[in-house]
């Protein structure tokens, strides 16, 4: 049986084969990469996320206890809404900020 092959497919395959056959000499590339590797041991993504998250949670609990307990969130939001930077409002903004940074760090993880 006569099978007509797709000429574009054949051209691409032929060009890709010659492209893959080329070898780029290392020429110190590996050494440069190894020299640039960050020093020290790396922390797993789970720990990298858990540590700041844990500290943020602890800070939130401490602040909540010292700034009026159950009403901390409501007080903080009300204070922010009325542009009154009380301790609750400041702590609330700090906690939200830290949580946002943690989220960005976690999201950038490949």
């Amino acid at each position, binding site marked *: 049986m006569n099978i*007509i092959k797709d000429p574009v497919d054949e051209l*691409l395959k032929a060009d890709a084969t010659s492209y*893959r056959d080329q070898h780029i000499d290392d020429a110190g590339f*590996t050494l440069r990469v190894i020299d640039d590797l960050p020093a020290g041991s790396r922390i797993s993504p789970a720990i990298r996320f858990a540590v700041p998250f844990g500290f943020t949670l602890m800070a939130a609990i401490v602040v909540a206890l010292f700034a009026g307990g159950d009403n901390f969130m409501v007080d903080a939001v009300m204070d922010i809404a009325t542009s009154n930077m009380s301790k609750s409002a400041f702590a609330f903004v700090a906690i939200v900020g830290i949580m946002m940074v943690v989220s960005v760090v976690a999201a950038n993880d*490949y």
Partner: protein
Amino acid sequence: MPSARRNAVDSAGFGDNDLIGRILLRDDRNAFAELVRRHQSQLRASLRKMTGGNIELSDDIAQETFILAWRNIRSFRYEAKFSTWLYRIAFNAWQSEVRKKHELAMDDENLPEPETVSSESERTGIQRDLARAMDGLTDGERNAILQCYYNDLSHEEAAYVLGLPLGTVKTNILKAKEKMRAKLGAYAPGRDTGQGVAA
């Protein structure tokens, strides 16, 4: 589609996964160096193709890719081959480079002229025509062709690298080949050019 490449194994019999295991257990830089040595040529060649032959830029992105791979090796899930995972990191790094350049220039006119691997005159007629035909593709179509043909990935692997649904990759390949077929009509079977491919 081209078949998936086998997992690279060095002369001592260590596969990529063995080396990754050593890195995870002992932060073994020698094992990582072996991975870099093993994959640098393929990755740099792929990036040169992606950047239109800009050697300096492609080597910078390749270096950044390996450093990102080292930093994030704990998130490697063995769901893809190490080389495919590298291609994914490299593609993302290339995309953020493109975004940075677009933010700076807002148009392609201000982008620096790349130092090309081979000049037009060094290419054969077919390669030149093929390159011109590829210039007429959209980014999505060109990326799909590069991953599936030049990086020898399956459609599924290309979808993983490009972060696109499988159907989109298949559509991009079909559209790209359709456009290229129109531009490369002279190489079609039956034409008297001596270049037609028919079996």
